């Protein structure tokens, strides 16, 4: 077993253990932290496959942004564990049926035909000076230009949806308009009237 295989098994073991802990951890915050560990080790595996750009974007996008959002949500929701576990047995039949259906579907897609060792021969060793990022860019900006532009439209839809879903006008909002404050003239605030002086 050479060094590369050893590193692969080391990372794969951590990945599997962390993934199991994600769904078995009682505390949701711990589950999220185990998911972060799983993403880190997955990016290590991608580095072994020489997919450097994907590995770094996994860390940057998922660990840096998505998991931070998850952690915020989990920490800020007031989750009552006892109440969450209350309906476990009533929901179990439906949940188990859906889970088995999804398992069967995945088995149909992933089973035998496409993911055998014979069906997946080892790719040719890349030439010296091979850069995964450059290869990705070459494909993305020549053959897959249309999906690439579609990605920006999907991101645009996500921005608009997020803004519209969370937008609300607060009735109790107290605010100042600085422009109005600066533009105020003397005549807006005081009125000078002439009147005869009075004597006691």
């Amino acid at each position: 077993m050479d060094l590369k295989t050893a590193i692969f098994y080391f990372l794969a073991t951590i990945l599997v253990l962390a993934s199991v802990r994600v769904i078995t951890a009682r505390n949701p915050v711990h589950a999220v932290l185990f998911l972060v560990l799983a993403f880190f080790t997955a990016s290590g595996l991608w580095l072994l496959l020489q997919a450097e750009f994907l590995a770094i974007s996994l860390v940057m996008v998922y660990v840096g942004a998505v998991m931070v959002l998850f952690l915020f949500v989990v920490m800020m929701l007031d989750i009552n564990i006892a109440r969450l576990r209350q309906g476990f047995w009533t929901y179990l039949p439906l949940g188990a049926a859906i889970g088995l259906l999804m398992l069967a579907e995945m088995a149909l897609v992933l089973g035998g035909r496409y993911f055998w060792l014979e069906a997946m021969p080892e790719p040719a060793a890349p030439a010296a000076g091979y850069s995964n990022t450059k290869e990705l860019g070459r494909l993305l900006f020549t053959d897959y230009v249309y999906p690439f532009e579609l990605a920006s439209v999907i991101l645009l839809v996500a921005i608009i949806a997020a803004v519209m879903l969370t937008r609300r006008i607060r009735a109790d909002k107290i605010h100042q308009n600085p422009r109005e404050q600066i533009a105020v003239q003397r005549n807006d605030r005081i009125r000078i009237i002439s009147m005869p002086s009075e004597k006691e």
Partner: protein
Amino acid sequence: MIMLENYFPVLVFVLVGIVFGCAPIVLGWLVGPRRPYAEKNSAYECGFEAFEDARMKFDVRYYLIAIIFILFDLEIAFLFPWASIFKEIVSSESMKMFGFIEMLVFLGILLLGFIFAWAKGALDWE
């Protein structure tokens, strides 16, 4: 095997980071005095009993900022492969302007989203 050697500095960096984080904790645990008792271990909130749980509902705008951050983070992620082959694209005859314009279209569509979010006040806190 050549490739793994390239990542040796990264490995050293990760190890130094782990040691730097763990060493103060271990040192404090080894060297510091520990004489706990019930009062010392109890939660302390300005001298009286804790009112409520630390977990509470949070303003939804906080998540809005986070979601917008994720979306523009993704946009930036698309720029890296483009930047790494930019010289190659502009030096080839057939792709000369195409490689430049396709990224402008991509950024332009997302600029619309940015303007929308700004105009709707999603970037203001209050």
